[in-house]
């Protein structure tokens, strides 16, 4: 028996709206289709109407988890257009926040993977330890999610000595906890049984479908913008590209945990070698005409911003490509021939950030088997009609 099940736009496994339509036979998925657009906010168009400085905050709002990634990607592109070079200390602070963000994003993802696999205890513990990073970020920047630490020509806040020591101290806790989670993740049989061999993506397929980030690295493709196209201070910092060759969800877990350790090393390096000096230089209000391609390795993969300036105080064109969008074709490939039970895990394994990737409700009439897509306006009319036909009895006071 073949039937299609809709996952989303509203589904407990998805924290953001996206529609996955699975054709399943029994418990096995035969085909998958992804429908986007539920969260399109027109940011690229809006960016053309905002000034360079306002756009920093707009770029930050592309995503909550990797807010710093988009802002940094944009800011370093605009700095090239404006021909300004931020001071060394500013760069260190900027990428310190970037690495802390990567730590928080990967810890968050570990917890989500646990939750999708029904391992709620793992989820609670990883998220508790993620609070350490969140508190660090809050202390550095003044906010937990939208750090807003970037500005054109540097960063907005300096790091004082006390905070620097505190972060160095807490880094040890994080390192210890991550080692512990690696141990748990590799040893808990119910967890490993759910991850190993699930969501296979061969190296050739991953290359064909242009997968990025940990998804590609778990398929043994050593791609990392930080090494391939070093930006900021990454040419002088020590780190290795972590890969795995199992090509499955377990591999993606391993890659992310390995990256966590790399992040801790990077953070330690940056904090220990923090240069003294100013944290920002003055930026002009207008940029010279020109175009620039800015790349950045976000926690989920490579970000790419293409910025065109016409010489005004606003961009002519600002194209944003978030890593999740690049991973969708690969996800469809991974879902095929999986189990229904694996949908959330496979989908979560690319660490989807739907509002990053973007910028109607489907109903199935069971009697006729006919599918139709209801739009929001129709749905509202339907709801109103139903309410008018069956007015609520009583005042809602239980039980009388």
């Amino acid at each position, binding site marked *: 028996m073949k039937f299609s099940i809709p996952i989303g736009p509203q589904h407990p496994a998805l924290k953001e709206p996206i529609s996955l339509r699975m054709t399943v036979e029994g418990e096995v998925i035969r085909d998958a289709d992804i429908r986007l657009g539920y969260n399109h906010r027109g940011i690229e168009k809006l960016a053309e109407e905002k000034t360079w400085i306002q756009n920093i*905050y*707009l770029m930050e709002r592309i995503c909550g988890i990797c807010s710093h990634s988009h802002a940094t990607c944009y800011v370093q592109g605009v700095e090239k257009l404006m021909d300004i070079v931020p001071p060394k200390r500013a760069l260190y602070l900027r990428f310190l926040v970037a690495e802390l963000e990567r730590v928080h994003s990967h810890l968050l993802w570990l917890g989500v993977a646990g939750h999708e696999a029904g391992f709620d205890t793992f989820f609670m513990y990883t998220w508790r330890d993620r609070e350490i990073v969140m508190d660090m970020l*809050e*202390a550095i920047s003044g906010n937990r999610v939208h750090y807003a630490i970037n500005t054109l020509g540097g960063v907005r806040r300096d790091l004082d000595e006390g905070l620097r020591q505190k972060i160095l101290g807490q880094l040890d806790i994080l390192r210890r906890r991550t080692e512990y989670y690696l141990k*748990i993740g*590799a*040893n808990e049989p119910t967890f490993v049984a759910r991850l190993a061999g699930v969501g296979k993506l061969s190296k050739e397929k991953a290359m064909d479908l242009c997968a990025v980030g940990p998804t590609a690295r778990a398929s043994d493709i050593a791609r990392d913008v930080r090494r391939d196209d070093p930006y900021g201070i990454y040419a002088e910092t020590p780190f290795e590209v972590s890969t795995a060759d199992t090509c499955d969800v377990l591999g993606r877990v391993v890659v992310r945990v390995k990256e966590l350790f790399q992040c801790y090393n990077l953070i330690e390096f940056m904090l220990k070698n923090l240069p003294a000096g100013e944290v920002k230089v003055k930026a002009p209000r207008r940029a010279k005409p020109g175009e620039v391609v800015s790349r950045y390795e976000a926690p989920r993969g490579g970000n790419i911003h293409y910025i065109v300036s016409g010489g005004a105080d606003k961009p002519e064109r600002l194209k944003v490509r978030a890593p999740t969008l690049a991973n969708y074709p690969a996800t469809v490939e991974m879902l095929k021939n999986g189990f229904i039970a694996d949908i959330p895990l496979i989908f979560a394994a690319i660490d989807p950030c739907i509002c990053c990737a973007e910028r109607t409700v489907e109903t199935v009439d069971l009697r006729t088997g006919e599918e139709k897509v209801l739009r929001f306006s129709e749905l509202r009319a339907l709801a109103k009609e139903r309410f008018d036909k069956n007015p609520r009895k009583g005042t809602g006071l239980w039980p009388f």
Partner: protein
Amino acid sequence: MKLAAFLPELLRHLFKKPATVDYPFQKLEVPKDFRGSPYLRPELCIVCRACERDCPAEAIDITSVNEAEKKFKLAIHNDRCIHCAQCVDSCPTDAMQMDQRFEIAAFDRHDLKMGWEFVRAVVKVKPQA
């Protein structure tokens, strides 16, 4: 691979203090540089409109009340504010400040708007970095 790898950790936590706090009754401290909501110190405002121009959310409105008396009204639409503190950075005289409040929900969006009517101040502009 071993069965119930998590067990010792769990049992240890059974008698530990929870990591969460009893939120509306107990609150955690926010760090000292926390970005809450913006507010104006009208005695310092020279009406240069830098904040209005730079605000990404168009949450700041400056209107002239009385041209002759140099009276102005500055309104902060906290319902639109994204708490980025760009206005604080843009302000040349420290007239814009951030407070520490983070519980700013209201039933009516009008309740979130704040306004100040003031006479334009004459203050020395701080040198830009």
